[in-house]
């Protein structure tokens, strides 16, 4: 095995190790959180959100091809969204968990009604349609659909920025959420740097930009690191809510420590945990260094 392959292998072992530890952290929290049947909604909503956050962080860690400015922001923005939503719900868990569930039921009811109208308009029988039946059963299993209201506004009846302010996450919203939003909504400040390539011919207006599909960007380790930080943050919010620390080591601390050791071995250090990942796509990443280490050595 070449030195380069050796470094890559070590990196992938770190990623797998991180994913295993993240799931272990999640499982440990679930184990130590006994179900209160009177607060089942809280358990399902809070636990479900924590599960999704863990899943996203783990999937990102497992998928280096996703560590590009084209894809990673699409996964990181929901993680920030979830982190804010999670903290906001935990301020009034019973009321807000119920509000969260009912909004979701209303959204499915609205979809079902659109489907029924479409079927009726094309001569079909909405009541005998299998998909309609399935959706109705899904709603009725939680709350009778004829009691379910549809809210076409924000589920929390306030926007995410206000929710972030309510639970002390203004900076997270202002910096991280806005940063990933440009990619999610395909805005100019994402399109210009990542979907257009500058022409360097001075006779062409001194540099127009040409649309390019799949402009190659090297995988950037700062993306899974950002995901790991968001998950760890979410765990912390949960621990504060529960008032206890889990009986297991921090996956994030292990991840950062192993990356730093690998960085030392190949002479490149990632940014420190105190210096949050910039994810600017411009900084040299460990993955690049690993790839280049063979040539340098």
């Amino acid at each position, binding site marked *: 095995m070449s030195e380069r392959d050796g470094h890559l292998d070590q990196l992938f072992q770190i990623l797998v190790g991180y994913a295993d530890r993240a799931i272990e952290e999640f499982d440990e929290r679930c184990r130590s959180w006994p179900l209160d049947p009177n607060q089942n909604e809280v358990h399902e909503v809070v636990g479900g959100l924590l599960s999704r956050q863990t899943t996203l962080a783990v999937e990102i860690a497992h998928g280096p091809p996703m560590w590009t400015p084209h894809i990673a922001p699409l996964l990181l923005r929901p993680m920030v969204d979830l982190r804010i939503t999670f903290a906001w719900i935990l301020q009034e868990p019973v009321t807000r968990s119920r509000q969260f569930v009912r909004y979701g039921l209303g959204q499915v009811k609205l979809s079902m009604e659109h489907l029924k109208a479409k079927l009726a308009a094309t001569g079909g029988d909405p009541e005998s349609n299998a998909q309609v039946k399935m959706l109705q059963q899904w709603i009725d299993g939680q709350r009778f659909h004829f009691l379910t209201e549809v809210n076409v506004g924000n589920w929390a009846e306030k926007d995410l920025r206000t929710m972030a302010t309510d639970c002390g996450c203004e900076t997270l919203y202002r910096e991280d959420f806005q940063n990933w939003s440009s990619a999610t909504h395909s805005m100019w400040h994402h399109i210009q740097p990542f979907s257009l390539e500058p*022409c360097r011919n001075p006779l062409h207006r001194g540099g127009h930009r040409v649309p390019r599909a799949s402009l190659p960007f090297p995988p950037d380790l700062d993306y899974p690191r950002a995901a790991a930080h968001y998950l760890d943050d979410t765990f912390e919010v949960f621990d504060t809510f529960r008032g206890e620390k889990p009986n297991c080591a921090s996956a994030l601390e292990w991840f950062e420590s192993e990356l730093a050791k690998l960085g030392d071995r190949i002479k490149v250090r990632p940014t420190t945990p105190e210096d949050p990942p910039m994810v600017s796509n411009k900084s040299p990443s460990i993955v690049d260094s690993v790839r280049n280490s063979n040539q340098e050595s």
Partner: protein
Amino acid sequence: MSPDTRNHRRRVLGDHKQVGKKFLPPFTAHLGAINEVSWVDDLLPELLWLGMLNQRHGLRVGASLGSALPKATDSVLGQHDKWLQLTSQYATVPVESWARIIEVLDPDVLQTLRDTLRPLVALYPKCPLRLLWASIPPEPDTSDIQTMRSAVDSLLDRGGRPATLAQANAIYIMFVTDKLQVYKGSILEKLESVVDYPRTDESRMVASGIRAAITGFSSQQGEASDDWTRYFWRRGLELSPCEFASRGGVE
């Protein structure tokens, strides 16, 4: 939080004016919408000829050559309202006047102008300066593309020395053709200081005044200017292919 801390906290966009959900910068909040002039799009093609003269002959000779054509044109046209530092303005000089302009120019100066500006006119045959060759337009040479690339490239940075000196030449032409007079104490009275740009404070202040003046004088040159600048950049696309870093060069 102590009062001191509060006083030192900077409010984000604190100097902007909020109108609904928009924050207007102080400049537009006070003055309203303005016609923006783009250096690259609108001005560079107009002043390129001055940049080429400077690039080839240095600032002193370049300025002298650059003012020779406007002065000759002035003497032939008599009273007129053209700003002859701009390439596009030569498209509005009556065709029948060009023979006389060529005659008025010193033969050595004419030859030097032709030698220096030949790549521009050869590669951009609709350039308004083409009539400097009377009825026989110059032929392109193999090295012309490189000459033009170098000339344009050197002027892309408006605050760079070559672009600043080309703009200074334009102001100089306005002075010598009596198109510009400045009040006593104006920074443009010290135009000569620009030779030191960007090494001295005074040269940087003069350069700033030059840029402001050029933008003001050049923002409403109308159809002739549009024709030339649009043609210039369209023609550039025909002359040579795009170049990309990611594909290792040209395509």
